[in-house]
């Protein structure tokens, strides 16, 4: 076991990573609760946004904030467009079908990104936020503002989204739709509009997560596209509906992943962390009752 000093920097980076996972997880949960769609293209739209931002900043010489804004706008626009186009068409299908359909979007975006921003040739891209340079030290550990923002965004979003779903009219409508779309529609809730709002919110979160992950992890289409699987683990622990549990699981995944890094025997296996946590959680939960994904299956 390495000395404690070696772990300290990884606590900070782990919390930051966990914060972004929480951010992604909350975005996924909100959309799932409102529309029943598990948005597997979450990572892909974030990656697309980040790559567009990179092109704007390094190629077109745009100022940084234009790029970051473009990242969020692109991710939100793609998500919103998909939601408008395929949301209603698949609304009555099984959650599994809806999730697999977003795999279609993932593949389209992934292929397009690989085509437009070719990764072969080994030239690594990077997207650095100005908050990387500033920072402060806690004890002996250097903390960048980006890491603070990452964790902060996760925490703030979790609190704000929970409050939003709990106390606002739109949030109540989303929760009602999670229970039963048909009855909610009968009660006079503009179902399509509420769904559109959820898609837009999810897209904005995807853009923010893409921007932060591009900085914290790597600006690479493959990595970012499939990083969604890691936040998916947290969402699964939260059974696709609980925001606080998703947040806690996301922090745990991020923290554990980074804390395993200095342990020589386990460092190669640290990427398994989200999968192991998700599998254990799913199996423990399913011991007592069968998890039901939709009313028809019950």
């Amino acid at each position: 076991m390495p000395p404690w000093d070696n772990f300290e920097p990884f606590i900070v980076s782990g919390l930051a990573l966990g914060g972004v996972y929480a951010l992604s997880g909350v975005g996924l949960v909100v959309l799932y609760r409102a529309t029943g769609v598990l948005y597997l293209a979450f990572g892909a739209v974030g990656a697309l946004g980040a790559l567009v931002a990179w092109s704007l900043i390094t190629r077109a010489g745009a100022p940084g904030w234009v790029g970051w804004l473009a990242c969020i706008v692109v991710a939100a626009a793609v998500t919103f467009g998909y939601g408008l186009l395929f949301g209603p068409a698949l609304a009555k299908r099984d959650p599994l079908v809806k999730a697999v359909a977003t795999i279609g979007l993932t593949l389209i975006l992934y292929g397009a990104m690989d085509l437009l921003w070719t990764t072969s040739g080994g030239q690594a891209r990077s997207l650095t936020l100005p908050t990387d340079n500033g920072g402060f030290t806690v004890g002996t550990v250097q903390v960048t503002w980006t890491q603070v923002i990452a964790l902060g965004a996760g925490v703030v979003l979790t609190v704000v989204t929970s409050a939003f779903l709990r106390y606002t009219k739109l949030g109540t409508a989303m929760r009602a739709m999670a229970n039963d779309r048909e009855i909610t529609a009968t009660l006079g809730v503009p179902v399509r509009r509420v769904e559109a709002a959820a898609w837009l919110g999810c897209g904005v979160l995807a853009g923010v997560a893409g921007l932060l992950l591009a900085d914290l992890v790597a600006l690479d289409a493959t990595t970012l596209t499939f990083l969604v699987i890691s936040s998916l683990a947290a969402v699964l622990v939260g059974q696709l509906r609980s925001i606080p549990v998703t947040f806690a699981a996301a922090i745990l995944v991020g923290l554990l992943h980074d804390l395993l890094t200095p342990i020589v025997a386990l460092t190669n296996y640290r990427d398994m962390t989200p999968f192991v946590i998700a599998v254990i959680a799913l199996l423990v939960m399913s011991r007592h009752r069968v998890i039901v994904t939709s009313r028809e299956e019950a």
Partner: protein
Amino acid sequence: MSEPKGRGAAATLERANPVRLRRRPTRPQLVKWGITAVLVLFALFALPQLMSLYYVDTMTQVAVYSMVAVALGVLVGRVGLVSLGQVAVLAIGAWSAARLLFATTQPYPLILLEAGLITMVAGVLIGLPALRLRGLYLALITLMLAGGITVVLATVNFPNGGHGFLGYNGSLLHIPPIRRPSIAAGDPAYYRFSVIIAILMFALVLAHIKTKPGRAWAAIRQSEAAALAAGINTTLYKLWAFALASFITGVAGGVLAGAIHYLYSINFPAQDSITLLAVVLMGGVYNLWGAGVAALLYQFLPSLLNNWGVSADWLVILFGVGVLQVLTTAPAGLVDQVPRDLARLRHRLSRRRGKRAPHD
């Protein structure tokens, strides 16, 4: 076990009422069998003569992935279980086959059988707890498990002739290739070998679909509750489907090991399982031909595009569009849609001609 009894009963009945029970194959059926036979013979004997070695190797891959696709097709189309981790299962099969091939001198078909059985055990062990979940959760847990297996394989590495249980030696300068059966050492011969194995696997699937398990699966797919009420042991048959799919995928992994000679964990990225599901859905999951179409989409088209100098990324985009199209308008995939659309076109054309005829 119920097979002989069933046949005996049928035979007695047949004697009592020969007209009703002796099912003569109908004409369309005969035509279908004929086409199948011609296609199989063509694939076995004519194709390797017609194609360059590049495409022979590609077609070997097509044979391998047609097995993977037919296994996934059984899970998705017959039982309604979506697995997002089939590439990890393929990797387990390839790993066990490679380890056995380096460790023993057993004949290749025996090794394939063993690799299939090992993978089957692994699949059942994974499936046993996973089957408590259903639908979306099952798909996601297979994705998670596949992610975990991929990480383990990346660390453990594939056997390369080293010693010990794992059979990997990182400091080996000369890595021996994974051997092939002595009768199928060359590429065309190995291609024929893999086609024959693929045919056997398709026959195995067909034998399941036409008999009791197939009917049980059909009932489970329609409604698990109704199947349970009808006295079907749903857990057993779901597990059976998992076992069958893992076995076939494991055998495919064994064939793959000999086909490419050297195995690396980067050959089996977890995200390929997602693409695989996409092409299997595109090909069509309710029809065995769909698996062949899926394998052609997955392995032949990339080679073709590569030969033409077109980026394979266009294919990924095409697969994405295909998934969306299958899910929204054509649930049975290309295998069903293309003939239907052609028939409709022919119908429309002939109707137009028919309308015009009396006027002229």
